[in-house]
């Protein structure tokens, strides 16, 4: 089986994130870049599927040069190869442009399964996997909390607001996984050394055969009008419990008409 895992480099979860004043894009220089946390579950799932059923796992990312660190991390966890789409012309691409670029580079490479984390911790849109499935005409198996194979049939538990749905499809398919589907492994020293020798294909917009007019900020289907830091919240009242803390909160809730 051939598996692609699409990963994204994002600012560290614990870092304060902000937008750049010049072009209203995320300021990626202001914080350390890490692999999107939810993508670690996607990489782990691919490796586990490979261990159980045999698979070649390719890590795919789109982003500036340092996003290559994310591919190296996944390779050191045990993935086999990487594809890095890197080009200044991609800066500012929105979800539609990103899904177009990913679908174009994934197409024709014979992947049986394309795995994503269910969302990125920076943009938090959660739409790219569905968009890629739509563009490629592939089965959409997203928000999986459990994945099972029977031959070429894949069945998942899809998390919904009210519980979960059982969804099934034949390969090839697009899969996205939620947090806690597995326990992502840490790269071993041996894995880190081996990763240095694994192949990473670097593609520009031209190499990938992308239409320059459909990627980057200028091709965006939406635009930021303005942005501002949320005004700091006015300080509230904080009291120390003297045996009547619950009563005091109830008084406050009555005042706010919640009771």
């Amino acid at each position, binding site marked *: 089986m051939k598996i692609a895992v699409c990963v994204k480099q994002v600012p560290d979860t614990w870092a304060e994130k902000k937008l750049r004043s010049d072009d209203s894009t995320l300021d990626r220089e202001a914080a350390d870049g890490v692999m999107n946390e939810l993508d670690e579950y996607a990489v782990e799932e691919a490796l586990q599927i490979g261990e159980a059923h045999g698979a070649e796992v390719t890590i795919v990312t789109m982003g500036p040069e340092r996003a290559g660190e994310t591919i190296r991390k996944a390779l050191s966890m045990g993935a086999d190869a990487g594809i890095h789409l890197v080009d200044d012309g991609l800066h500012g691409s929105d979800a*539609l442009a990103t899904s177009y670029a990913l679908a174009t580079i994934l197409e024709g490479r014979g992947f049986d399964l394309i795995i994503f984390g269910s969302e990125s911790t920076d943009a*938090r849109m*959660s739409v790219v996997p569905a968009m890629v499935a739509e563009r490629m005409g592939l*089965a959409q198996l997203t928000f999986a909390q459990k994945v099972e194979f029977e031959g070429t049939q894949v069945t998942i538990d899809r998390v919904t607001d009210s519980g979960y749905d059982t*969804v099934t499809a034949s390969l090839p398919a697009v899969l996205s996984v939620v947090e806690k589907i597995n326990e992502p492994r840490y790269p071993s020293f041996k894995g880190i050394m081996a990763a240095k020798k694994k192949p990473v294909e670097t593609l520009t917009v031209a190499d990938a055969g992308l239409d320059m007019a459909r990627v980057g900020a200028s091709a965006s289907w939406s635009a930021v*009008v303005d942005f501002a830091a949320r005004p700091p919240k006015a300080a509230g009242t*904080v009291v120390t*419990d003297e045996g009547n803390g*619950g009563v005091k909160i*109830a008084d406050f809730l009555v005042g706010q008409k919640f009771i």
Partner: protein
Amino acid sequence: MGEVLVLVEQVDGVVKKVTTELLTLAGSLGEPSAVWVGPGYSAAAEAILAEFGSSVVYVAESPELAAHPVAPKAEVLAHLVAEKAPVAVLVASTADGKEAAGRLAVRIDSGVITDAVAITADLIATQSVFGGSTVVHSRVTSGTPIFTVRPNATPPVASTGAAARSDVSISLSDGAKKASVTGSTAAVKGGRPELAEASIVVSGGRGVGSPEGFAVIEALADSLHGAVGASRAATDAGWYPHQYQVGQTGKTVSPQLYIANGISGAIQHRAGMQTSKTIIVVNKDAEAPIFELADYGVVGDLFSVVPQLTDEIAKRSA
């Protein structure tokens, strides 16, 4: 005024609260039309949709549409966009809704803005990003604007009115039929509202200390008819199921009232709740950063403060 399509969210034929909010919002942008996809449409559903401003309901009720995830909703909406040329399409910011909006955007080659908390009459959306630390205004610049709107963004306003039913039938694309829904399992939630759309959320964190400790959190939630949430520390420890996690890697909530108990308020958690309208904090540690968000805070042991509060609510609501 132009037509604004609103995709109906429903569970077993019952219209969800978020749809009444979206119809109200749509009424400030144009003429709201509800779009129903899947079986289960009824006079009761139609009455609710009409009450919140829908003058037309497009009904696509072939069972086939519910047999496949997400894509049928996008394809019904794409059909209606082509036929009716609406000024905008509104979809709830649920997992399903956002994916349907994403597929629709690809299909009709239009821009999509997710997680809007407000939309002005000239279709500029407000988003609260990076865990609520930044407020962004943006607009769609190409095609028919598609917005996904967060639950609790607009107070629903009922009026009197009737809705005309208009049946829609489409043939699904081959791609849409490639994945099939074969079953549905409801989570046990003890009759509580869904976390994402609840008006009141009561959450517990590290300070709750054990799975049993969540009984006091649930009792308070039930006294207020609210939903229960948990911080990542509590879900990682296995004290409460993961799907109730509020935070950057869990659910984002924006209820009228959020009560944080035994939660320190790391960025991870604040990112999921700091746009809540009113925030109450109970924590033993007076230095906990969550107090910065509190409209009202009590420094104290949650195991004495929370049960006392639950009792008081019962007394005062009686």
